[in-house]
């Protein structure tokens, strides 16, 4: 038996015999303190059988044939997990959880609390022991690191995505009292307000599903185009203000929800600054055009272009100049080269950016809420089906299923478009070329889209910053610091500094949760991307879709499903900071996965293979070869997950507690109360913190060095073409 496997068996014993089995949150569950072994002896008989698989795992240490060794490990892992799950789900907080058992053994039966450190450690140990057993059987070329990684990621996705999501989706098929009612599902599903097509034939409204789909496709196209323009300018031109452009393009991603919407209203609303100017100078009548599709479209474009940019910049950088130079040597014009070589090589990036833009638009909730007007989309409909006057959770679940179906469709289309082509351009061979400057037409188009857009972003942010320092934006422009004082007052007390501002509490909690979840998200996301692109195993496609699932489901539904799933044993973690961290990790992981996949599909597998042939193990290869090449993807996922943890709203509304109040719920509360100034001031502070974090992440991870000459250092006549 390998030393790693033995180590995990020992950890399994520690979890069972030494650590407290129950009570992750409260260490003092009445009558249930102590390790699994101690409790089992004391009378919690359902914990005793777990000793059997732990003994079985020790069997191979006494020497046996390798074949039977793997058998023992597999059997131990399977039995251990089965026992933990079986007792966890049949014995609840108030006795038996199934009526059948109540009838058989009498009510209420034994009680138990949620799993603690001991239970969690033992379960993990069983899982890893199982994976080691499978590796010994020859799975994944006998690589225990790969099988364990697959096992862990799969288990995490099952626990934190499938399990909660299935609990709530089950309610789509139930009536309000919880009985199984498939007819009600059909009725809700086929509702005219969802699928109606009245807007084609008359001036009535179309169904909410069509609205959502239309908006999603528009936004996905828009963000991909803008993101591409920014990425091309940042990597392929000699543009002077590149750095500034990069900061500008990232600003919207770090803006808390509602703020962009509010700024747009203050600019384009009927009483907005620009509308007033247009009215006074040109007599253009003030109107309410911003409320509805145009407003939501602009706001989402502002918010999601950075994601497309972050995905695309890594891909554009990674394209090897060698192929482009070959094309030019063959006398292709730069335009032909761009269309036939560069653009097709960007396809993984374009497809992933498009998919993310589409899914983000579908899941976005803040912007349609503020700017939607009478243009309804699924995400807001779902939110108000849960919390609105209807209070119909089943309807929310039905609408979520439709939303999920759209995401699934987009995912499938993306796969079909990418096909089985190869996009590898980063190989072990020396790259002698310099990146081709953009053809004149493309450069001009990029500048023409990116620069006005950047200026527009500046205008929006100017409004936000001004809003933080005036009494009441849109009405009273007296400069004031009141908003900051209310939120972030610091007083000197006798015993030191006292943070008396009303926002400090949520501010600290938010920074803490964001800082904890970002590295976890990046690690799990990139590990998953590595498994998906570099390993072959059955069920890979389903696995890939599973990682997208939590991203595609609206936050409100995720929030409610986390309460339903994690408020009772065996996993009882609501009310802790842990559940917030987990929620963020699994909601934001897909970005790590997508950008990881996009970047990895460019890196030649022969690099890994060279490392493996030289005797390095998978883990070493990943650390020394793959990770350094993945730097852009690491930055993207770290930045994105940190930022999203600070700006997400709808999922956390149900998960915050007095101790873990998040910044966004505070902001939403202020917006609801009409205190826009305070909300904007707080947002400005958050934007500042996030900018600092992004700079820190960039510095910590560093740039990727591909061993190519840079275009900017080159003064050959070709490079001049880039400047318009």
């Amino acid at each position, binding site marked *: 038996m390998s030393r790693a496997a033995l180590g995990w068996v020992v950890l399994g014993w520690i979890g069972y015999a030494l650590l407290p089995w129950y009570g992750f949150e409260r260490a003092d569950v009445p009558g249930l303190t102590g390790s699994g072994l101690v409790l089992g002896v004391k009378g919690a008989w359902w914990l005793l059988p777990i000793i059997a698989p732990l003994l079985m795992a020790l069997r191979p240490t006494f020497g046996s044939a390798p074949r039977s060794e793997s058998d023992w490990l597999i059997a131990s892992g399977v039995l251990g997990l089965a026992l933990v799950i079986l007792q966890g789900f049949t014995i609840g907080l108030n006795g038996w959880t199934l009526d059948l058992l109540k009838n058989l053994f009498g009510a209420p039966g034994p009680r138990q609390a949620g799993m603690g450190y001991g239970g969690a450690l033992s379960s993990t140990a069983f899982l890893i022991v199982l994976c080691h057993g499978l590796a010994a059987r020859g799975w994944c070329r006998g690589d225990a690191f790969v099988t364990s990684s697959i096992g862990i990621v799969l288990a995490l996705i099952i626990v934190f995505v499938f399990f909660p999501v299935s609990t709530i989706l089950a309610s789509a098929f139930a009536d309000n009292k919880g009985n199984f009612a498939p007819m009600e599902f059909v009725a809700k599903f086929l509702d005219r307000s969802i699928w109606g097509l009245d807007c084609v034939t008359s001036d009535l409204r179309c169904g909410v599903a069509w609205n959502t789909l239309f908006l999603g496709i528009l936004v996905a196209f828009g963000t991909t185009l803008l993101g591409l323009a920014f990425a091309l300018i940042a990597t392929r031109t000699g543009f002077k203000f590149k750095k500034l452009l990069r900061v500008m393009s990232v600003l919207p991603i770090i803006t808390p929800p509602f703020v962009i919407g509010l700024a747009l209203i203050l600019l384009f609303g009927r009483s907005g600054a620009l509308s007033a100017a247009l009215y006074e100078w040109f007599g253009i009548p003030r109107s309410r055009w911003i409320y509805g599709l145009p407003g939501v479209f602009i706001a989402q474009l502002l918010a999601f272009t950075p994601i497309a940019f972050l995905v695309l910049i890594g891909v554009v950088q990674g394209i090897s100049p060698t192929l482009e130079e070959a094309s030019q040597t063959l006398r292709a014009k730069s335009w032909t080269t761009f269309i036939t070589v560069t653009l097709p090589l960007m396809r993984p990036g374009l497809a992933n950016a498009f998919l993310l833009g589409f899914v983000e638009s579908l899941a976005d909730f803040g912007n349609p809420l503020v700017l939607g007007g009478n243009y309804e989309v699924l995400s807001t409909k779902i939110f108000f089906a849960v919390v*609105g006057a209807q209070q119909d959770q089943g309807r929310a679940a039905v609408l979520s299923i439709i939303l999920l179906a759209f995401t699934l469709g987009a995912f499938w289309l993306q796969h079909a478009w990418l096909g089985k082509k190869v996009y590898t351009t980063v190989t072990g061979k020396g790259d002698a070329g310099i990146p081709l400057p953009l053809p004149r037409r493309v450069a001009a188009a990029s500048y023409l889209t990116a620069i006005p857009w950047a200026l527009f972003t500046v205008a929006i942010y100017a409004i936000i910053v001004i809003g933080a320092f005036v009494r009441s934006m849109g009405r009273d422009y007296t400069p004031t610091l009141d908003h900051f004082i209310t939120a972030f007052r610091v007083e000197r007390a006798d015993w030191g500094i006292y943070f008396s501002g009303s926002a400090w509490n949520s501010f600290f909690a938010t920074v803490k949760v964001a800082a904890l979840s970002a590295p976890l998200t990046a690690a799990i996301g990139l590990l998953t991307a590595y498994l998906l692109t570099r390993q072959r195993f059955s069920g890979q496609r389903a696995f890939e879709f599973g990682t997208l699932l939590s991203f595609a489901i609206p936050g409100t539904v995720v929030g409610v499903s986390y309460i339903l799933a994690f408020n009772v044993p065996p996993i009882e973690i609501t009310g802790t900071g842990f559940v917030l961290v987990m929620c963020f990790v699994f909601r934001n992981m897909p970005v790590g996965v997508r950008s990881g996949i996009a970047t990895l599909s460019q890196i030649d597998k022969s690099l890994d293979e060279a490392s493996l042939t030289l005797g390095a193990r998978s883990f070493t290869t990943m650390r020394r070869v793959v990770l350094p090449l993945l730097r852009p993807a690491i930055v993207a996922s770290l930045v994105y997950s940190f930022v999203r943890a600070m700006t997400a709203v709808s999922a956390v509304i149900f998960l915050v507690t007095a101790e873990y109040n998040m910044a966004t719920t505070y902001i939403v509360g202020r917006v609801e109360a009409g205190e826009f100034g305070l909300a904007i001031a707080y947002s400005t502070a958050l934007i500042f913190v996030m900018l600092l974090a992004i700079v820190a992440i960039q510095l910590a991870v560093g740039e990727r060095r591909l061993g190519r000459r840079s275009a900017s250092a080159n003064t050959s006549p070709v490079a001049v073409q880039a400047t318009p």
Partner: protein
Amino acid sequence: MKLRTKFVAATMLAGAVSAFSFLSAGAAQAQGALVMYCGVQEEWCRAMVNAFERDTGIKVAMTRKSSGEIYAQVKAEAANPRADIWWGGTGDPHMQAAEEGLTQEYKSPKLGELQDWAVRQWEQSKNRAIGIYSGALGFGYNTELIKSKGVPEPKCWADLLNTKLKDEVQMADPNSSGTAYTLLATVIQLMGEDKGFEYLKGLHKNVNQYTKSGAAPAKAMALGETTVGVAFMHDIVTMVVDKAPIKVVAPCEGTGYEIGSMSIVKGAKNLENAQKFYDWALTPAAQKLGAEAKSYQVPSNKATPVPPEAPKLSEIKLINFDFAKYGSSDERKRLLSKWDNEVKNLPK
């Protein structure tokens, strides 16, 4: 090299363990002696918590959410309740929770000191939800915009049908907002169901947007995005106090109202403290905190001084609002789907 790897692994493990213990320790502290879900605005919630902690020494862990969100959360947590008391927020979700048995009965010794409407709410919810404040529905108009439009100042519900106000009235969507549902129920009780729906169809021609949140029309009026907005009068008053050019109107035909309520969650872990809070929150000393936090609802204890800014309930023609009928989930579903089909989908 190997040693270094091990060292790195050990540090990471230690870091992870300390991070998790950090998180769970925080959670343990959060187990205050009373867990409260608060359904009004932040300032008021904070003031209530501070005053209660000062008076009783009981530590309160408070979370603020909208009342619809609190209802959804209490329902989702029913298997293992986290909250003890649900204070504030419009009455409908409280009634719904009472109907579904998510909250529990309690008879406070302060019952005798309360206004009739507060006690009636308690009786109709089978001794579960009690009224703590009340606010009348009304509308407001932006004085500058209405002058520039040359429209006579509206005084009654009927005035909102004025064709000159086309696309100038804003109200919430009754599907998402309790405020707008109150309007729907009010109009039906004032005019009867058929005439009421005729009125809403007429109003539809003048509505520029059905907002999601009930207080949004008040804010839109303050920003000048709409001329007229239908909302609870105290929400509009908050904007007036903030010096927005708005006038509040109590409609001449009479109007409906909401009863902000309080309930004890069924299975509350700190039941005794929840009852203490329940009694305390009904005293004049606790109820006058609302006005200090710029919330101008009418308090339910007869002895509480009514804030001078608050719309005087005695001067408003209030209808005899049937909360039992219009608060029941079947009637609500029926009216909402009727509104969806007959009003919302009409062409302008």
